[in-house]
Each structure stands twice: as C-alpha cells, then as structure tokens.
C-alpha cells in the first residue's frame, strides 16, 4: 500500500463508520497489538547474546537461547520463557530465510616497503575470488595498511597502492568495479602496536571485507 492510498483509507474508514450508523467497517482481530520478541543463537558462531525489552510499564531481559516475551502496548512485559524451536521456524521461517549471507574478512600481507604480495598471500587470491562469487551482489571494501617505517604521508600512499593493486586483481577476475571501495589507513591502524620506524610484517597488509 503506498502512502497516498493509506492516507485515503484514513479518511474513508471514519466516513464509512459514520455512514453505516456506527457499525464497524472492518473486523478487528481478537489479539491486541503487541510484539513477540525472541532471542536466538547467532547463526555463525552459536553464541547467545542479550536483549532487553521495555516499555513505560516495565522491562525484561532475554538471555537464553529462544527466550521469548510478548509485549502488549502499555502492559508490563511478561517474564521471558523459551519458545519451542519448531514454533520459531513456523512463525519466523520466512523472515529467517531472507537473511543475507554473513560478511567475510580476509587479510593479505606484503613484502617490506612494497606493493608485492607475499607468496603465501598470493596463493589466497583464488579462494577470495571464489568467496566473493558466492554473493549475489557483493560489497567489497579494500583497505591498505603499512608498518611504521617511513613518513605518514608516504605510508598513506603505500597503503593506497597496495589496496588499489588488490582491487585491480579482483576486478580483473570479473568483479564489478562499482561494488569495490578502496581506502588507505597508512600506518595509523596497525594490527600489532609498535614504536615508530619499526618493521613489522603483520602490519603490512590489505584487509578485505566482503558482504
């Protein structure tokens, strides 16, 4: 229903109610308005988080797998109780089936002061291409990083060169360039903290996010 049609209904419904001598034009379901909230294990690592559900009348906390509460307008949220797994599937199966694939992250490492990949990282490229291919419309973010040898400005440029080379490798493998973002964090975002002017192989990298 578009916005305009909805506005039209808002006008029509009271008009009908009046013209029908107060008879209701639409049936109102017996169930009052409310929200069923269910905490589920994370589909990727199985961990169970925590959710609070509150309104003006009170608050409850869900903290176990399939803990559920149904909060009705203006009423104190009832204490959570687990919902049967089959019920979760019955009620929420359609919504759960629409969840996009989980994002993936990769790191590729480079030789010192260079935009040449290490041999080990070069061997990872086919796998990264395969993973990207599993997403119908992937968003890919490629961020270049350096160690702390050299100047900030020079390292920003080196990080950008590293990221651009990886972008080009992925695009030449068939990825749509408009879906790739390239950035450099230079030496500002190391994996391993070091003093300035320190060679550190683990910081000479490009990080790839695929989602």
């Amino acid at each position: 229903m578009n916005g305009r049609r909805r506005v039209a209904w808002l006008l029509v419904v009271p008009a009908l109610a009046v013209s029908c001598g107060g008879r209701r034009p639409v049936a109102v379901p017996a169930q009052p308005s409310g929200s069923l909230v269910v905490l589920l294990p994370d589909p990727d690592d199985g961990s169970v988080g925590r959710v609070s559900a509150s309104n003006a009348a009170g608050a409850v906390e869900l903290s176990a797998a399939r803990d559920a509460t149904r909060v009705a307008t203006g009423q104190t949220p009832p204490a959570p109780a687990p919902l049967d797994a089959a019920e979760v599937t019955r009620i929420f199966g359609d919504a759960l089936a629409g969840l996009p694939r989980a994002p993936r992250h990769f790191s590729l490492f480079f030789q010192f002061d260079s935009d040449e990949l290490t041999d080990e990282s070069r061997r990872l490229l086919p796998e990264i291409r395969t993973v990207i291919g599993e997403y119908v419309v992937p968003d890919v973010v490629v961020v270049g990083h350096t160690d702390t040898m050299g100047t900030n400005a020079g390292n920003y440029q080196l990080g950008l060169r590293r990221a651009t080379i990886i972008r080009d490798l992925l695009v030449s493998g068939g990825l749509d360039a408009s879906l790739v973002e390239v950035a450099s964090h230079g030496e500002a975002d190391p994996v391993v903290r070091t003093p300035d002017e320190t060679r550190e192989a683990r910081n000479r990298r490009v990080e790839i996010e695929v989602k």
Partner: protein
Amino acid sequence: MHTRGCCAVALALVVAWTSPAIGQQAPAAAGRIKIASGATSIVRQGVALPAKPGELVFEADSLRTGGDGRLGVTLKDDSRISLGPNSEVRLDRFLFAPATDGVGFGLTILRGLLAYISGRIAKLSPDAVRLETPSAILGVRGTHLVIRVDTP
C-alpha cells in the same frame, strides 16, 4: 554594473541555497538489498521504489513487503536485517563513522516479521542500537533476534 552586482548576489544566493541540498542528495548509503522476492519496495521520501537486489538503502528509508514478499539487507557495519511477508520497517537512524562522527542504529518495526543480526555498531557501542516496535523498545547486547509485530 548595477545589474552585474545583482546577478552576482543572486548567483551567490542560489549557490548558498543549493549547496546543502546537493550535499543532502548524495548521502552515504547505509546498506544494500541482497535478497528480494515477491512484492517488495523501498519507500524514500514518500515514493515507493522497487526493492531489487543491488539497490542501496539510506537512512530514513522504509522497507515494505507484500503477502508473498521477502527482503534481506546487509548494512555498512555488517549488521543484517530481513523481512518476512506483509512487513514494514523504517531505518530511523544509521551512522557508521567510528573514527569521526560516531555510530548509531535505529530501526522501527511497524508491522510483520523481522530477523536481525547485530554488526559492528553493537560491538562498538551497544547503547547506540535501538530497535522499536509500537509496544516496546529493545536494547541489543548482541546478536541475533526475531520480532513479530501484531497490529489489530
């Protein structure tokens, strides 16, 4: 001379007036539609647009599905949402600029079914995530929840 001065003032006014508008026309996207089937739409500034995979989603957009609709979106912070049939949500707030402006996530579920998996915003600042329904406010400390909003 006088005319030229007027033109210059008029031009300056036009530039001053349109510049912020240009800025507003190209805000950063909040995410992208990854899955869409059946009747689905993005409602942006009151206009319903088809919600196909690949379409960008912005702060203040609403997402809607019809009786056979299903919709999945991945946001910039890696959080994911999906709608079942006959559902509607509005992305009230989305800010993911941890190094500069901060983070924020606000989603209102108006009706129907929603599945949610939290992302980096919830990790960085759990209090910055707020899911709302007509009858409840949900605070999320991670990670995965489902919500059904029944409307009379």
